[in-house]
């Protein structure tokens, strides 16, 4: 079945420094949809970024990611971390946009940004 592997555990970094969270995936489908969801403390997950176009950068709220089908990757980056970026980040995969849209999530990466 489908699988998503992302940077494990806790990532601690200093405000103002760059952020990069790794995400790789496995699927038999050739046109998957990839997502990053963010979950702040005591909130539900919400969509941060999504893409299904190969080699095209997608951006939102200062974060960006590029889907690279050649390496099955969708890494999340931000040039300068803010304290408010402290949250749990999930990479997720949907194999197609057909009925069901069953998403497979990675285990999540917790980010803590310190002053």
């Amino acid at each position: 079945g489908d699988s998503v592997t992302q940077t494990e555990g806790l990532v601690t970094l200093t405000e103002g420094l760059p952020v990069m969270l790794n995400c790789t995936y496995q699927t038999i489908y050739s046109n998957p949809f990839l997502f990053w969801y963010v979950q702040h403390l005591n909130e539900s997950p919400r969509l941060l970024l999504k893409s299904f176009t190969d080699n095209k950068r997608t951006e939102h709220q200062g974060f960006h990611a590029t889907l690279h089908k050649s390496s099955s990757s969708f890494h999340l980056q931000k040039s300068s971390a803010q304290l408010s970026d402290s949250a749990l980040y999930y990479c997720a995969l949907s194999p197609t946009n057909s009925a069901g849209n069953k998403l497979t999530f990675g285990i999540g990466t917790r980010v803590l940004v310190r002053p």
Partner: protein
Amino acid sequence: GGIITQTPKFLIGQEGQKLTLKCQQNFNHDTMYWYRQDSGKGLRLIYYSITENDLQKGDLSEGYDASREKKSSFSLTVTSAQKNEMAVFLCASSIGGGRGTGQLYFGEGSKLTVL
């Protein structure tokens, strides 16, 4: 916009008890989901439903039942609560039938504690 409402927000049960969680959405979305969230294990799919009266098992369906009574509601039953179990259950919905990208909209979660 729409909203997903989960009830109850907090549920305390006894070992062996049957416990039911309810979810309502007013997005008019076709597909609804129940995920279980555990630290270090990500979001794991329990059941999903692509239309009224449809049920599809996810990766974690054992020990659970689900029911899609109507398009707007999806309930989840823990058939026999396990002692010392603690988890957060997240309901979600998405546009289905090939018209969406698989983006999920989540409820605020229901936290289960079994004594």
